[in-house]
C-alpha cells in the first residue's frame, strides 16, 4: 500500500483557482469517502487529497471536477515518504503562507476526523497531528504575532500583561485600526470609545465593539480614561500632541499610531509613562518576529526530518508484514495439525504440550521476524520477504 497525494496550494495556484477548489468540511469529507480510503484537506490556501492507493488519478479527477477545469499542469503529486513529509510540514505550519500559523493544525485534525480514514492513513495523520503539537510545544514558531494588528495587541500585552479590563480609545474607522481593535478586544481589552470624523461610522463601529461613540474634539478629554490609544485616521495633521496627554501618575498609557500621516505627535513617546509605536515601528516588530519564526522553522524542520525517518521505517515494515503473518500462520497450522494427531489427552497434558510447542514456535520464528524487519528498515524487505515465501512455500499467500 502506498500513500499518494495530489493537491494545489498557494505555492502553485493563484487565489482564483484555489477558491474554486476550496471545499467546506462536509463536502471535503464526502469527496474523500467517494475515493475510498482518503482524506481531503481544504483550506483557503490549499486543497489536498491524501489517498491510501498507488494511483492518485481518481483523486485528481475529483478535484478537476470540482474546479471545472484541468489541474494537471498546476497540481502537485507525491508518493510515500515525500507525501508524508509534505503532510508533516503542513501540520507543523511550515508550508503555510505565514510560517508557524496555528490554524492549520486544527484544519488538518478536522479533515482527518471528518474523513475517518482506514488504518494506513489513520497512522500517518495521527503522526502528523502529534508532530504539529510537538512543533508548537518545543519551538517558538507560533508564539510571535505575524501581522500589524496582532503585533499591536501583543505590544499592549507587553506593557500591561493581561488586557482584561484595559480601556481602549479607538480613533478612526480604518480597516487596520478595526482589525487591531478586534485583536485587542479578543485578548480581553474593552473598546471604551470610538472617535471618528464621521459620526455614523463612529457609532457603527462603537456598537460593534460595545463602546461609546465620541467626536474627534472629545479625544483629549478622554485620554485620562484610556490605557491604550489606537489611532488610524486619514487626518492630514497630528490629532494628539504632548500637551493633550494628562500626566500619568500610576498607570502607563500606550499609543498605537497606524495612521499615515501620523495622528500622534512623536513627542508623546518621550513623556513619562507613555509609550508610542507608529506603523514603521510595528512593521519592524513584525519583520523581526517573522525572522524569528524562520529561525524557529529550522528547528521545526529537524523535528519533521525525525518523523520522516520514523515514517520511512514504519512504511518499510509494511513490505514484510504479510510475509511474517503468512509464516506464522503456516507454522501455527503445522503445530495445530500435529497436536490434533495425538488424539485424546488429559487436559493438563494437553495444556503443557500447547505451552511447550507455542514456546518452541515463538523462539524459532523470533529471529527470522526480527531479521525481516531489519531488512525492511534497510530497504531490502521485499527481497527478503520473497526469499522467505520461497523457502517455506508461501508464494500462494503473496499479497
Amino acid at each position: 500500500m502506498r500513500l499518494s497525494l495530489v493537491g494545489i496550494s498557494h505555492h502553485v495556484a493563484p487565489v482564483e483557482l484555489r477558491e474554486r477548489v476550496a471545499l467546506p468540511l462536509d463536502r471535503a469529507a464526502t469527496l474523500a469517502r467517494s475515493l475510498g480510503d482518503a482524506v481531503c484537506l481544504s483550506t483557503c490556501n490549499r486543497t489536498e487529497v491524501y489517498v491510501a492507493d498507488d494511483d492518485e488519478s481518481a483523486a485528481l479527477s475529483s478535484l478537476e471536477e470540482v474546479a471545472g477545469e484541468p489541474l494537471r499542469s498546476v497540481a502537485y503529486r507525491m508518493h510515500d515518504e515525500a507525501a508524508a513529509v509534505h503532510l508533516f510540514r503542513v501540520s507543523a505550519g511550515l508550508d503555510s503562507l505565514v510560517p508557524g500559523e496555528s490554524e492549520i493544525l486544527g484544519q488538518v485534525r478536522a479533515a482527518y476526523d471528518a474523513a475517518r480514514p482506514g488504518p494506513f492513513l489513520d497512522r500517518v495523520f495521527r503522526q502528523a497531528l502529534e508532530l504539529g503539537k510537538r512543533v508548537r510545544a518545543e519551538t517558538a514558531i507560533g508564539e510571535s504575532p505575524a501581522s500589524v494588528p496582532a503585533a499591536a495587541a501583543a505590544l499592549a500585552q507587553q506593557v500591561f500583561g493581561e488586557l482584561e479590563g484595559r480601556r481602549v480609545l479607538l480613533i478612526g474607522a480604518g480597516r487596520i485600526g478595526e482589525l487591531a481593535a478586534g485583536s485587542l478586544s479578543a485578548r480581553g481589552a474593552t473598546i471604551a470609545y470610538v472617535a471618528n470624523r464621521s459620526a455614523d461610522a463612529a457609532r457603527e463601529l462603537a456598537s460593534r465593539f460595545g463602546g461609546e461613540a465620541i467626536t474627534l474634539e472629545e479625544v483629549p478629554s478622554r485620554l485620562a480614561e484610556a490605557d491604550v490609544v489606537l489611532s488610524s485616521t486619514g487626518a492630514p495633521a497630528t490629532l494628539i500632541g504632548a500637551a493633550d496627554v494628562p500626566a500619568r501618575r500610576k498607570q502607563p498609557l500606550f499609543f498605537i499610531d497606524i495612521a499615515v500621516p501620523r495622528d500622534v505627535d512623536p513627542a508623546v513617546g518621550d513623556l513619562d509613562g507613555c509609550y508610542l509605536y507608529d506603523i514603521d515601528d510595528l512593521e519592524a516588530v513584525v519583520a523581526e518576529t517573522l525572522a524569528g519564526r524562520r529561525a524557529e522553522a529550522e528547528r521545526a524542520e529537524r523535528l519533521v526530518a525525525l518523523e520522516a525517518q520514523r515514517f520511512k521505517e514504519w512504511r518499510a515494515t509494511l513490505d514484510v508484514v504479510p510475509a511474517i503473518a503468512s509464516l506464522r500462520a503456516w507454522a501455527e497450522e503445522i503445530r495445530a495439525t500435529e497436536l490434533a494427531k495425538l488424539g485424546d489427552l488429559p487436559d493438563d497434558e494437553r495444556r503443557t504440550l500447547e505451552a511447550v510447542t507455542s514456546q518452541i514456535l515463538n523462539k524459532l520464528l523470533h529471529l527470522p521476524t526480527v531479521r525481516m524487519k531489519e531488512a525492511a528498515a534497510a530497504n531490502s524487505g521485499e527481497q527478503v520477504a520473497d526469499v522467505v515465501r520461497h523457502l517455506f512455500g508461501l508464494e500462494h499467500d503473496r499479497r
Partner: protein
Amino acid sequence: MPELLFWPALVAYGEAAVAYSSARFSALGTWGVRVGWLAQTALLAFQAGRAEGFPWSSWAGSLNLFVWLVVSTYLIWGCRPRFRLLGLSVMPLVVALFVAARLGGGTETGDRPHYGNLFLVVHVGCVLAAFAGFTLAAGLAGLYLLEERRLKRRAADILRLRLPSLVALERLTKRTIAVSLPLLTLGLVAGFVRLREHGGGVDALMAATLAAWAVYAIFLGVRPAGRNGAHLAIVGFVLVIVVRVALAGTHF
C-alpha cells in the same frame, strides 16, 4: 561531606549563570538552579545537624544562608521562561557570594555561636530573608528598567526576546518589598531589643541597615510608579549590598 555538597551546588549555580545567557539553554539554567538549590539545602541541613546551635552566625555563614534564601526566592518566579533574564542577573551574584561564603569558611561545620539560638533565628533569619527579598526586588526592578527602555526605544526585537510585562514587573517588585520589609523590621527589632538588654552602640552596619529600611519604607509609603519606583528599589538594594559585603567587618 560539606565538600561533597558545596561543589555540586557551586557547579550547578555556575552552569545556571552561563545557561541563562542563551534563550535556547535557559531550561538547563533552571535545572541548574534546582539542582544547586537541592545540594545547598543538603549542605545547610548537614551544617545544622552538626552544629551546636545556630550554625550561620558568622559573616561567611550568614552569607551562605543568604545565598540559599536568594535562590529559594528566585525559584518562586525563576522557573518561568520570561524571567530568564532575572536569572541572568541573580545567578552570577549568587555564584560570587557563594564563593565568598566558602572562602570565609561559611560552608564548613563547627561554628560555635556567641548568641542564643532563638535570637539568632529571629534576627539573622529575618534580616537575611528580607535581604534575599530585596535582592529579588532589585532584579525585578532592573528588568523593569530594561523592558521600559526597550519599549521607549521601540526595539524591533521586543516580542522575540520577551520579558514579563511592565505592569507585572512593577507589581511583583512592590509585592516582594511588601513581604520583605516586615521581615527586616522584625529582625531589626530583635537586634535592638538585644542591644538594649546587653548594651552596645550602633555600628556602621546597623546604620546602613536602618537607611535601607527607611528607603524601603518610603517605597511602600509613597508607592512611586514606573521608573521612579524601580530606581528606589535599586537604591535600597545598593544599601543591602553595602551591608552584606562592605560593612561586614563592623558587626560580626
